């Protein structure tokens, strides 16, 4: 049987305690608690409407929680603005891809770089020479990453001209450019063909290996979850109902109930 819901493992990089958020009468996230271990690949699963995306939004500062705490790398970040949390090293993708279609692929990458002081008006005052140097270095790095994600040929194309799968890759590449410590992926495999799906998963493992990045990903494809996650966290109706190794979780009675219950409601 899976361990107690939300039980913290060793050295959590992210800790969520009793997080709550309601929309009108809908308790989208209802006292959810969970922990993500440093260096792990953790999956967040649950039936449609379980509150997974809302949890992401709360954790990353895109929504304000009604109550509860979020601690990232030992710092409380509850209710901090999204950009601050991102700058601290916790970044996310969205359920619907947010590649910036009216910008080129390369500009998407350069935008993600976190070390360009000329993004601020004050930083521009240092003169063009200094930021152009930084820009050139970033461009080289970006092209290298694009190469790795097989997007280098499209570097100068508008991101809007990419295929859906390529856009998902670009989002991942952009994250790598930003180099966060913890990455939250909202359904990275949704709407992606199996070949590309495997590629995305392989990138995830490689990035963890090479850079020690931690991943928390929402996914509905159970095969992918079972084969790739170290830890699986299960949500239903806004709560975390189970947490454990994949093969333990799939046998958990509460989890089976949650999914069956969801199906029963769907067909009712």
């Amino acid at each position, binding site marked *: 049987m899976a361990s107690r819901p939300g039980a913290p493992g060793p050295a959590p990089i992210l800790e969520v305690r009793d997080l709550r958020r*309601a*929309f*009108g009468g809908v308790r989208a996230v209802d006292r959810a608690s969970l922990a993500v271990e440093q260096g792990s690949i953790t999956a967040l*699963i649950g*039936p*449609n409407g379980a509150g997974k*995306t*809302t949890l992401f*939004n709360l954790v990353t500062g895109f*929504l304000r929680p009604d109550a509860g705490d979020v601690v990232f790398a030992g710092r409380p970040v509850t209710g901090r603005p999204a950009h601050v949390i991102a700058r601290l090293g916790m970044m996310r993708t969205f*359920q*619907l891809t947010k590649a910036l279609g009216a910008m080129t692929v390369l500009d998407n990458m350069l935008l993600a770089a976190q070390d360009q002081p000329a993004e601020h008006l004050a930083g521009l005052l240092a003169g063009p020479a200094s930021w152009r140097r930084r820009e050139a270095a970033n461009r080289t790095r970006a092209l290298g990453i694009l190469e790795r994600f097989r997007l280098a040929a499209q570097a100068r194309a508008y991101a809007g001209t990419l295929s859906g799968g390529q856009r998902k890759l670009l989002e991942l590449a952009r994250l790598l450019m930003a180099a966060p410590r913890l990455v939250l992926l909202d359904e990275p495999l*949704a*709407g992606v063909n199996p070949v590309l799906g495997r590629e995305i998963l392989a990138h995830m493992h490689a990035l963890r290996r090479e850079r020690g990045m931690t991943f928390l990903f929402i996914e*509905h*494809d*159970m095969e992918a979850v079972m084969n790739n996650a170290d830890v699986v966290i299960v949500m239903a109706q806004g709560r975390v109902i189970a947490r454990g190794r994949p093969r333990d979780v*799939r046998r958990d009675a509460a*989890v*089976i109930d949650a*999914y069956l219950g*969801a*199906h029963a409601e*769907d067909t009712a």
Partner: protein
Amino acid sequence: MLNAARSGTPPPADARAAATGAGRRWVAAACIAALAALLASRGAETAAQATINGLVTGTYFALGAVGLSLVFGVLRLVNFAHGDMLTFGAYVALFLNAGSGWPIVPATLGGVLATAALAAASELAIWRPMRARRAGGFQMLLITVGLAFVIRNCIQLAAGADPLQLRLDVTSAVALPGGLRIGTVELWVVVAGLGALLAVATLLRYGRLGKEMRALADNLSLAEVAGIDTRRVILATWLFAGALAGLAGVLSSAAAGILTPNFGFQLLLSLFAATILGGIGNAYGALAGGLLLGFAEEWSALFVDARWKLAVGFVILILTLLVRPNGLLGRPALK
């Protein structure tokens, strides 16, 4: 076993959950406080007179705001031409009344019908084709601005910029109990306006059209799937909004006793304020918001110079947007 059904539904927009009850209580408390302050500082009679004036203003604000809100609710369109639709209705009525010598009632009806026709024409000539092209919100918004310019300046071209007046007896007044007075014209404005509002409210509440409009406001594509003839409902929404705007135009110019081509545009921001006060897209909210704003402007005139009356509307608009962008009354949602 665990392979749950996949759906690609986007997360709903952040619907700020405004506690509706709290909003209403807040408004009620503010009104009572304002009235108490009035009574204490200016005496019952002054307060009552200001309230009557507020009712007159509030009536035509409400008429204008309901139409604006209906269009927003169904089409998500902030119509910057709405104020000029008021002007249009007023000028048609004025032309029929002062120009062609029609009595005021048929002239008013003429103005109402003409404005409804204008609104329907805009739907057929512009909005429907633009929706078919999937035009963006920015395009639509600037088209309403352009339309506002076209309507206003066609009127100015036809009638000139000089102030005009309906042929009405604006001097007679009716005495009310307690030594209060209301102008005869103003009394008729309130009676006709509130009557029309009541009729509209009933129709929206119980009529099939009202239900269909709500269905469209909730989710246009879903309503379409559910077999509602959305084209017909949208056209009806425009007819409605136009008719109400026309009536609001005639009544407001009658109450103000003056009409210029800028008349409606100057009212527009007050109508926005009323609409947002009531929760944009919510017709009943707009009705209440309109009345509330009318009172607020007239009551405020007792405390600050009446020249600042209009500014009160802008301040309320900005404050509402800042504090409770989903409005004080009515349902939340709609972003």
